[in-house]
C-alpha cells in the first residue's frame, strides 16, 4: 500500500499538469489529439485521485487532512470534481484549462510538501472536527473555482471593453455565464466556510474553553469569510456588477491561499499541521 501511495504522490501531479496542458492545447490550438485525449485522461486522473484519497484514509485510519499536503490534495480533488460537474452540465467546458491548472497547482504543492508520516491524533476522529475540516476544504475549493471564473470574467470583460480581441474572445463562455458560475462558487464557498467556522467554534469551545479565540488562523479565516459575505451582500444590495464581484473573488482567494499556507505554517498553534 505504501508503494502505491508513494507512486500516486509522483503520478498525480504529473497527471494533473498533463490534463491542464491537454485542455490548454485544446483551447488554444483546437487540435483533434487533445480533443480526443484530454477528457478521458481527466476522468482517469479523477478516479486515481479518489482511489489515492481512499487508500490514504485506510492507511492512516483518518480522513486525509492531517497535514498541509493532505489538505491541499483533498482541495485539488474537490476543485476537479466541481469542474467535472460544470463540464458534465455543459456550461463551460472551455474553461477547463484554467480551473484544472488550479487543481494541478494544489496537487503539485501537495506532493512537494508531503511528509512521510502524518501525525495520528484523536481529534481527527471527532465528528464535529471532521465536519469543520470537511467544510473548510470544500469552501477553499469553491473559492478557488470562483477565483478561476473571476479571472476569466475580468479577462473577457477587458478585452471587449478595450476592443482588443485575443484568442480568449469567442472561445470563453459569455460574461453572463462566467458571472453565474463565479457567483455560484462564491455562495457555495461562503456557506461551506460558514459551516466550517461554526462547527470549528463549537468544537474548539468544548476542547479549549475560550483559549482559541486569539488564534491567528481563526481570526484570519473569519476575516476572509466576512470579506466574502460583504462582497455578496454588496452585490445583492448595491447591484455590484460582475467586474467588482470578480475582483473580490480574486482578492478573497489570495487571502485563502495566505491562510492555507502561510498562516498554517508560521502563525498559528491550534491550526498547525506540524
Amino acid at each position, binding site marked *: 500500500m505504501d508503494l502505491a501511495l508513494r507512486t500516486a504522490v509522483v503520478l498525480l501531479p504529473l497527471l494533473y499538469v498533463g490534463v491542464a496542458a491537454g485542455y490548454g492545447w485544446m483551447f488554444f490550438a483546437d487540435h483533434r489529439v487533445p480533443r480526443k485525449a484530454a477528457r478521458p485522461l481527466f476522468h482517469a486522473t479523477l478516479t486515481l485521485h479518489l482511489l489515492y484519497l481512499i487508500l490514504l484514509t485506510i492507511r492512516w485510519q483518518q480522513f486525509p487532512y492531517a497535514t498541509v499536503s493532505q489538505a491541499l490534495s483533498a482541495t485539488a480533488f474537490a476543485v476537479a470534481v466541481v469542474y467535472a460537474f460544470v463540464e458534465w452540465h455543459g456550461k463551460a467546458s472551455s474553461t477547463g484549462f484554467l480551473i484544472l491548472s488550479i487543481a494541478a497547482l494544489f496537487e503539485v504543492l501537495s506532493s512537494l510538501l508531503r511528509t512521510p508520516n502524518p501525525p495520528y491524533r484523536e481529534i481527527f476522529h471527532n465528528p464535529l472536527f471532521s465536519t469543520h475540516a470537511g467544510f473548510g476544504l470544500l469552501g477553499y475549493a469553491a473559492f478557488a473555482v470562483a477565483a478561476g471564473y473571476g479571472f476569466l470574467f475580468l479577462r473577457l470583460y477587458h478585452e471587449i471593453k478595450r*476592443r482588443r*480581441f485575443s484568442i480568449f*474572445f469567442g472561445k470563453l463562455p*459569455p460574461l*453572463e455565464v462566467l458571472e453565474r458560475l463565479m457567483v455560484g462558487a462564491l455562495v457555495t464557498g461562503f456557506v461551506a466556510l460558514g459551516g466550517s467556522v461554526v462547527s470549528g467554534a463549537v468544537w474548539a469551545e468544548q476542547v479549549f474553553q475560550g483559549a482559541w479565540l486569539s488564534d491567528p488562523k481563526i481570526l484570519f479565516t473569519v476575516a476572509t469569510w466576512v470579506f466574502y459575505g460583504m462582497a455578496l451582500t454588496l*452585490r445583492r444590495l448595491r447591484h455590484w456588477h460582475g467586474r467588482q464581484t470578480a475582483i473580490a473573488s480574486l482578492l478573497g482567494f489570495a487571502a485563502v491561499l495566505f491562510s492555507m499556507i502561510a498562516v498554517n505554517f508560521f502563525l498559528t498553534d491550534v491550526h498547525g499541521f506540524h
Partner: protein
Amino acid sequence: MVDSRRALEASQPPVLLIGVDHRCAPLELREKIAYSEEEANELLTSFQARDDIDEACLLSTCNRTEIYLLPRRQSEAYRTALEHVFLTRAPEIEAEGRFYVKRGREAMQHLFEVASGLQSMVLGEPEILGQVRRAAQNAEDLETSGTVLRRLLRGAVAAGGKARTDTAIGNGAISFGYAIVDLARSIFHRLDSCSVLILGAGETARQVARNLIERGAKEIVVANRGRRRADELRTLFPEVQVIEFEERRAALERSDLVIACTAAELPILERRDFERAMASRRARPLLAADLGVPRNLDPAAGELDNLFLQDVDSLEQLIGQNLRKRRDEIPRVQEILDRELGIYAAWFHGLAAEPLVAQLQRHAEQIRQHEVASSLGKVPSETHESLNRLTRSLVRKILHHPSSHLRSGDPPDMQHLEAIRELFRLDDD
C-alpha cells in the same frame, strides 16, 4: 498523402468541369447564367437524352455556376455543356474567355475546395456546403448522377463537413452583422432573450437585422427618422417592431443591445442617455455597436462601467483578425481534402478492378469444377461433399489476397490489372 495523390493521378474518372465564378466574371455576367432549381432540373433532364454525356450535376449559386460531367465523348460533351449551360444565356463568355475548364483530378479537387469554402468569395462561408449538398441531391433525384458522380459529390459534401468541424475555416464573424452577433454572444447567455434596439433603417440596418434574426434574436425594435423605411424593414422582417425616433431614449433603457447605423452628423445618443439607461438596468450589461460614420453614439459613453461600446474600427479589427485566422487554416483544410480525395481514388480504383476480380473468380471456379468432376469417379461417393468443400475453400483462400489487393487500389496501376488479365488468360473466358 503523397500516396493518395499518386493513387488519384494514376486512376481517376474523366470528370469534366466547366464553370464561371466571381473570380473570372463580374456580377452582371453571373446574373445571366444563374439557374433557379427548376431551370437547373430542366437543363439536367435535357442532358439525359444525349448520348455524349453519361452523368451530370449543375451547381448554381450567386457566385458561381458550374457543370460537372462524366462524358462519354470528351470533346462533344464539352461543346454541348458549354453551349447549353453558358453560351445560350451569355455568348460573350466564350469570346472574353470568362470561364474555366478542369478535368480529372483538377476538377475533383476544385469541387472539394468549393464544398469546403476555399473557393468562396468570403473564405470559409457556410452556405456553399448546403448548396453543394442540394445540387448533389437534385442530380440524384433526377438520376443524372450515376455511380461515379454520385460518390464524388457525396465525398465532396463529406470533405466540406469535415473541413468545417475539424478546422476553424468557418470560425469567427467576417461581416458587421455577425461580428455584432459574436460580441453579443460573448456577453449574453442567450441571444433570444436579448432586447435589441436598431437606430436606422437603411441597408446596413437590414443586414444587421437579418443576421440577428438568423442567430435567434426575437425582440427587435427599430427607430428611424423616416417612418417609411422603418415600415419597409418591418415588412421584410415581421419580428421587428417599429417605434418613433423620439422614443429611442426610453427604448434604450429596455435594451440589451443597441445598434446605431444612421447618417446623422451628430451623436443621436449622448453619454447622459446611457448613464440614465445604465442606472435603470441594475447589473445587466449593455452592448452598443456604432456603425455610423460620423459616429452616432457619444464615444464618452464607452467609459461607463458594464457598457461595451464598439465602433466601425473595432468591428473591422475583429473581422480582420478572423479572416487571418481563416487563412491560417487553409493548409489544414487542404490536408483533409487530400485525404478525402485519396479515399475516393481508392474507391474508384476498386470500381475499375471489380469486373476483373469477378472474371478471375469465375475462371478459378470453372477450373475447380472441371477438376472435381474428373476426380469424382475415382473416389468413394461419401467423400464427394468433402471434396467439394475442400476445393471451394482452397480456391477462396488462394484468391482472397489478390482480390482484396486489386479492390484496395494498392498499387493503383492499370498495367497491373492488364498483367493479371494476361497471366490468367482471362480474355479467353
